[in-house]
């Protein structure tokens, strides 16, 4: 039993840090010691990341260990994603030290971040539809509040409201889908659902099919996949930039980890769309992947606002990651694409977080929002601009960071699963993304600054977070070797 608690230590780190923040806030509600709050929150994230990374590499969770009568499972995939959540939480908490320095309710801010992270780590381990729903709500409710944290800022409040309304709608759709699946199969545990799904597909194909499609829809909302993405640009643009980083990296990855587990474990495609046909969710995800990456990238290419461009690019990357599910066609080994998808979300956790944190830095300097406002920035802040260049080129799939490898792994996965045309769609989108990502780079390095702006302070915590994310992004190019075996093994264990 002690082993079990050890396996839950990453989630425990989030909880302990959250409780510590509660206590600090209760003891000294008027306290302005942001450094302590940020340090506690960052430490919580860091411990969670180190613990999950250590457990992953030690092989303690291979094969997966079921806890609480199978309600939770800790395996390679859950640890990889908990590592992402921990890293992103640490980076965001560190960067927030400077970002929320002068704002009220700082303790609540960090607390909400950690509670959301707790929910995400449970999502990664959820092994029954009930736990999925509860964990999803645990991560979503703090997120709504975080988006509207700048409560005197109209944009922030509007974004929060929009995010909340759309999120509530998607949660209700998801929970209704879950109830239909329960009606058809008689269970909420993934293993039992999987056992009953073949029979349910024969007896109640309509109920099961609609239930599964509603679950697909619920996850499409959470991962900001088109056509359910329209909340994302507004929410990411209106939120405080560190929160945008948190949501677009960690929250999105949480949506994916649940989708990976639910569909591969609970709804085996051979049973649900084989001889007895209820619904072909691989086809549904193929359509979602193509639409999402195309919509995201084309919309990103037309933006003038950097943060909004990043928001749409985040939609595009959701489309790339969906290839992991769309490639489970049964031809070749779908595990390659699924593993590549996990690796992409891992690298994305660093490069996308870093990019949004750079925007936080720009907001801190009050530079403005458009590409033109970044003109010539490299002359004043060369180090931060090198970091941003790394993020942009890594997101675009150039070999300055791990995003290069993970993106091409996805192409390889698609080709290997016989859906080479999906790889080709990714290729076209990727070339387009090079155009808009390089606009940021061009502004920083090539354009001349039109007026002399005044950058007085270089906020050290925000800088440390941006540089740290860049260093990890670069190191993940050779260093993807640390995670690749774990990711492909985790994927192979699922399919």
């Amino acid at each position, binding site marked *: 039993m002690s082993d079990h608690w050890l396996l839950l230590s990453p989630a425990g780190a989030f909880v302990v840090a959250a409780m510590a923040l509660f206590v600090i806030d209760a003891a000294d509600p008027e306290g302005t010691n942001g450094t302590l709050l940020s340090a506690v929150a960052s430490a919580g994230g860091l411990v969670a990341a180190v613990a999950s990374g250590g457990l992953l590499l030690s092989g303690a969770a291979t094969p997966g260990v079921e806890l609480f009568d199978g309600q939770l499972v800790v395996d390679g995939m859950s640890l990889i994603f908990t590592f992402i959540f921990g890293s992103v939480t640490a980076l965001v908490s560190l960067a927030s030290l400077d970002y929320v320095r002068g704002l009220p309710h700082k303790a609540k801010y960090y607390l909400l971040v950690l509670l959301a992270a707790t929910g995400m780590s449970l999502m990664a381990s959820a092994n029954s539809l009930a736990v999925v729903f509860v964990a999803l709500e645990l991560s979503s409710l703090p997120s709504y509040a975080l988006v509207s944290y700048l409560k005197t800022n109209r944009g922030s409040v509007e974004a929060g409201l929009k995010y909340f309304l759309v999120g509530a709608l998607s949660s209700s759709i998801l929970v209704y889908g879950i109830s239909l699946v329960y009606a058809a199969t008689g269970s909420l545990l993934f293993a039992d659902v999987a056992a009953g799904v073949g029979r349910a597909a024969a007896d109640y194909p309509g109920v099961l099919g609609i239930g599964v499609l509603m679950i697909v829809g619920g996850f499409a909302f959470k991962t900001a996949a088109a056509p359910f993405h329209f909340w994302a640009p507004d929410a990411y643009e209106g939120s405080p930039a560190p929160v945008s980083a948190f949501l677009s990296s960690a929250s999105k990855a949480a949506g994916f980890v649940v989708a990976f587990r639910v569909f591969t474990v609970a709804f085996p495609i051979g049973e649900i769309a084989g001889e007895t046909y209820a619904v072909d969710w691989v086809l549904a995800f193929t359509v979602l992947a193509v639409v999402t990456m195309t919509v995201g990238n084309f919309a990103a290419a037309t933006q003038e606002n950097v943060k909004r461009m990043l928001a749409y690019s985040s939609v595009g990357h959701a489309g790339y990651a969906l290839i992991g599910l769309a490639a489970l066609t049964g031809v070749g080994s779908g595990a390659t694409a699924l593993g590549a998808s996990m690796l992409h979300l891992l690298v994305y956790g660093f490069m996308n977080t870093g990019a949004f944190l750079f925007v936080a830095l720009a907001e801190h300097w009050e530079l403005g929002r458009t590409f033109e406002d970044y003109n010539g920035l490299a002359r004043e802040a060369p180090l931060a601009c090198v970091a941003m260049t790394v993020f942009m080129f890594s997101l675009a799939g150039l070999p300055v960071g791990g995003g290069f490898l993970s993106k091409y792994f996805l192409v390889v996965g698609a080709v290997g699963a016989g859906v080479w045309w999906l790889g080709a769609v990714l290729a076209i989108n990727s*070339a387009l993304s090079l155009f808009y990502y390089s606009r940021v780079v061009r502004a920083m390095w090539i354009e001349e600054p039109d007026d002399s702006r005044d950058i007085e302070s270089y906020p050290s915590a925000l800088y440390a977070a941006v540089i740290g994310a860049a260093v990890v992004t670069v190191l993940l190019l050779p260093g993807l070797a640390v995670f690749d075996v774990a990711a492909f093994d985790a994927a192979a264990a699922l399919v």
Partner: protein
Amino acid sequence: MLIEALILVCLVGAAVVAAAPDRLAGRLALAVSALPVGGSLYMYAAFDGSGNALLGGDIAYETFFRWLSLGPYAVNYHMGLDGISLPLVVLSTVLTMLAILSAWTPVDERQGQFYALMLFMEASLIGVFAALDFLLWFVFWEAVLVPMYFLIGVWGGPRRKYAAIKFFVYTNIASLVMFIGFFGLVFGLGDSISSTGLPAIAQALRAGQLGALGPVGPEALALASFLAMFVGFAVKVPVVPFHTWLPDAHVEAPTPASVMLAGVLLKMGTYALLRYNFTMLPEQAATLAVPIAVVAVVSIIYGALLALAQSDLKRVVAYSSVSSMGYVILGLIAYTEFGIGGATFQMIAHGLISGLLFMTVGVIYNASHTRMIGDMSGMADRMPVTAGVFVAGAFAYMGLPLMAGFAAELFIFLGAFGSTVLPAAPLFTAVAMFGIVIVAGYLLWAMQRSLFGPFELEPDDEIGRAPLHDVAPILTLVVLIVLLGSVPELFWGMISDATIDLVATGGELR
């Protein structure tokens, strides 16, 4: 570990130079870039490889360890050189050093960043030619784009932003097409390979182990992959009709970047064609021999005609590269000893000669601030040494005996004429040889208008002498071109040894 040491020197040097103050950056970069030159020359002197690295030859300076897993395949860190790649590594290091020296005059702002990018590019280029695992090779292949984007975008001419992004997106799409084509082959090979190593894949393909991929049969798969890779590499080479990015990139790029672009980056395309298409899929190449030869000959003639029509000296040199690369393609598709060997030799020769011409145009531009042929006349009067070098470079291009261009073109024509793979080989060769006449036409005409006659210069009439550090690199290149032309054996032995295995296949094909 010698290759890794060279790459590391370039990368560390790049970081140091980036942080150095501008007045030191140029000299520091020159000193750093001399180290890989020494290293590559040592590797040349101590070269003990034999045969083709992909076909079971002895690989020199080999490093091998496990790097990544990619689903069912291992990705290894596998580097090494053979008689094809070693000359190209030497070319890269020498040309980078000379290009850095030639940058001293034209580059006068953000010098630390400029030289750092040059060194970063050198590291990537060495990697491209030395990597023997597909994914590792692809990392370096794409990494080259990043410094080139900045070199064109920051230090380029008036339309530099357009040229930089065009170069970037164009070549990136090409890479993606090629990537999908190649992995079609990898998955088609199924269990017969366990890694993405190029030797394993090449040998498995040549042993006929390609199977079906999903509904696509092996023959259709091989043909589709061949086409995807050919198109991907053809953009880089470039051949007509994929050449439209080249004049923009060249004209806007600063001189040292043009030197690297024409001298080494274009060779990446032909090197990859040789390593992938022509080594791994010879039967598909033979099937498509006529269309490929047509592409080659059209590039030769059309590129030369485009050069003839230009009024900008740099554009003349830029389009002439399209023409010269056509010869490389023609030599490759011949599948004879002199054809493939000559094509490889031409990569080196053209690297030196086009580098020389771009640098010379740069020296003239530094002094006169114009490249328009109509604006200048009688430049030989004021810049006798530079003009002499230009004439030498032009004659090397036309194939004057005892210069590198002569040896290369002679090999290619000999090889192409006797090809058994290419139907109507003598006809294609004859048409291609006619390209030389046009080359002579545009170069002599351009020189006659700009270098000779009475001295005139728009807008201001007086120019100074070219400084020593402008003239030194071009004189060095002339010496190297004559050396390679008089003693082709310097590289021919190892090139021939590394390409002879390919020829045998070609002979069996028909």
